[in-house]
């Protein structure tokens, strides 16, 4: 429907322009022809009037002989037919008629003549008359019928109109053909696009053999389809991952409930079943909470406070919190903490710190070490977590922050994580106007660095800086670092 309306519009514009051009040409031609014809008549009448004027100058006005005063035969002879002969009227300065031929001719004086006019022509119905100033303020009016010339002009006008119409019609047909041709590839494109649905995003528009502009469009559309396809795949993957993440705990609940209800049980058995269900439900809750957090981050609706937060304190707390886990894993956690303040949400930052630290501990080797540092670099607060762990392969590094991605898929049960931790970390850091970068070497270790806009030192708090939470102040996270996220 859209391509059709474009075509109609093209056609309408084409018709309009064609009409203007054809009408313009026709009218100009007609006007020029008409002007030439009238100039010719004027010249002829003027020559007659000049003859009369010459005679008058011989003294006719002062009582000289008038009998011989005639229009030259050369003029009259051309209009020999009755009713078409030229006529003339000579008026004295007071308007009284000196002489008229034929004597009863009805030709009123030309009132439109102005003092600067030497002569002036006018048309009166089928008559064309020319008034000339004669000697001693007399006026000489010569006129004749121009019905034949007018008929000729009408005929010319008619022919021009018909020719114009024919040209216009031919133009319309040509235009229709042209617009069809121009619109056909668009139609083909839209048919292709029409076929492409969420299920068949892999199809592409055939851009071979179409015009350059449309080829460009097709390329752009194809690129867009590519991005859409990727995004759809990611979406589908995400949904599959999310449901996958919920299926295992759901199985635990179903299994234990079914088992517990299958026959009468001891109280202790019910307790055990309920405890298993509780653990599974807890895991589901974590996944659901994390999904919600991510959805909010995606929508830019993370509710973050904006308060002065001592990053060092946040980190120390996280280290303390994960002390037990580190001990269980036989991993030593060391800190090199420099006090540095940022403006942000303490809970959010604590979550980032403990998440990164937990990963560094979990993906480490027994006897391994983790170093957590906070430093101030220029106007940035940097939190770095460096581990001597298993490292991350280059291929995994790229998908590290993908939702539900796990370096080792089987670790989910062990850690109780949802697989959303790093994605949430990134969302939180970005919401703080910061960026997060990861460097890793297999079996050497991984360094995760979080850079946040630092707050001014307490002393110079008066100097206002842009809010790190306002999107503008934040750096885009795609600069610097070895992997970028």
């Amino acid at each position, binding site marked *: 429907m859209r391509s059709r309306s474009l075509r109609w519009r093209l056609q309408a514009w084409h018709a309009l322009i064609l009409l203007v051009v054809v009408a313009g040409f026709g009218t100009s031609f007609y006007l020029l022809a008409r002007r030439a014809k009238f100039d010719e008549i004027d010249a002829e009448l003027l020559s007659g009037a000049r003859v009369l004027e010459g005679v008058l100058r011989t003294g006719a006005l002062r009582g000289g002989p008038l009998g011989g005063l005639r229009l030259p035969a050369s003029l009259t002879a051309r209009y020999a037919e009755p009713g078409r002969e030229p006529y003339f009227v000579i008026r004295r300065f007071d308007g009284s008629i000196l002489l008229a031929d034929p004597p009863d001719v009805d030709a009123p004086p030309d009132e439109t003549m102005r003092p600067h006019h030497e002569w002036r022509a006018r048309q009166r119905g089928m008559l064309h008359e020319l008034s000339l100033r004669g000697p001693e303020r007399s006026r000489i009016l010569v006129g004749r019928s121009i019905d034949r010339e007018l008929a000729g002009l009408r005929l010319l006008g008619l022919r021009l109109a018909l020719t114009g119409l024919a040209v216009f019609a031919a133009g319309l047909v040509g235009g229709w053909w042209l617009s069809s041709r121009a619109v056909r590839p668009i139609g083909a494109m839209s048919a292709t696009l029409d076929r492409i649905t969420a299920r068949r995003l892999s199809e592409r528009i055939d851009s071979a053999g179409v015009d350059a502009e449309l080829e460009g469009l097709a390329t752009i559309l194809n690129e867009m389809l590519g991005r859409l396809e990727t995004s759809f795949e990611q979406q589908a993957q995400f949904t*599959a991952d999310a*449901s*996958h*993440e919920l*299926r*295992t705990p*759901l*199985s*635990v*609940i*179903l*299994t*234990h409930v*079914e*088992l517990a209800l*299958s*026959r009468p049980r001891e109280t202790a058995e019910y307790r055990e*079943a309920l405890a*298993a269900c509780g*653990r*599974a439900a807890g895991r589901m809750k974590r996944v659901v909470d994390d999904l919600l957090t991510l959805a909010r981050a995606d929508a830019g609706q993370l509710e973050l406070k904006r308060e002065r937060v001592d990053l060092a304190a946040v980190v120390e707390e996280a280290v303390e919190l994960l002390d037990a886990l580190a001990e269980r894993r036989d991993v030593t956690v060391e800190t090199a903490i420099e006090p540095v303040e940022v403006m942000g949400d303490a809970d959010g930052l604590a979550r980032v710190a403990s998440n990164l630290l937990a990963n560094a501990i979990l993906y480490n080797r027994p006897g391994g070490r983790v170093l957590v540092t906070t430093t101030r670099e220029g106007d940035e607060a940097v939190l770095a977590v460096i581990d001597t762990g298993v490292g991350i392969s280059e291929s995994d590094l790229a998908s590290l922050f993908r939702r539900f991605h796990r370096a*080792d*898929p*089987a*670790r*989910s*049960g*062990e850690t109780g994580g949802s697989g959303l931790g790093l994605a949430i970390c990134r969302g939180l850091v970005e919401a703080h106007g910061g960026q997060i970068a990861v460097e890793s070497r297999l079996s050497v270790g991984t360094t995760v660095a979080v850079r946040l806009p630092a707050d001014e030192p307490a002393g110079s708090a008066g100097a206002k800086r842009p809010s790190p939470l306002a999107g503008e102040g934040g750096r885009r996270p795609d600069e610097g670092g070895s992997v970028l996220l």
Partner: protein
Amino acid sequence: MRVLVIEDEPDLARGLVQALREGGYATDWAADGAEGLEKATASEYDAIVLDLMLPRLPGLAVLRRLRVLRKTPVLILTARDGVGDRVEGLDAGADDYLVKPFELAELLARLRALIRRSVGLADAVIAIGDVAIDVATKTVTRAGVPVPLTAREFALLELLAHHRGRLVSRSTIYDGLFGDDDDTLSNVVEVHVSHLRKKLGRDLIVTRRGQGYMIEHEER
């Protein structure tokens, strides 16, 4: 009947193992892929329940390596329900496929069907003379009259019936009836055999002294 569960989520594994034991299977548990493969190849199981996402060795790898050595029926448990995932699992040598979350009743039914097919039985009811063993409902009738059996007695009868015409060694029976960590005291095979003879007739089960037991082919 002896079943191995290879599942890393401890709560799920506990539930499965308990359900299978209550269903009359001697059940062992392996918590990761490597341990699972080791157990699956070390002894003869009637069926294996295999999770796909496992630490140390992924489920599909376990399956491929197992298939080189054994034909044990394998039922895959997985949280992935894509057609591609199912095809991959079945192509790797799985016999059946169950997507989480599943119901225990279905898991047990599929397992019964797997075991039945693996010993070449199309029907859930095995008839031996006037004794009819319904594997699905775990009931036994003699001349149409229901005979109440304990779970162990039924398991022993089912094992012998599945291996009908073949001698079943004492150790196979022991393995089939009791899991690795089964610390029950009522594990004396002779006691169960004598109970079965009392309930179903003396000559149903033949003793080969020093070798084991068997149910003979149709001669009676």
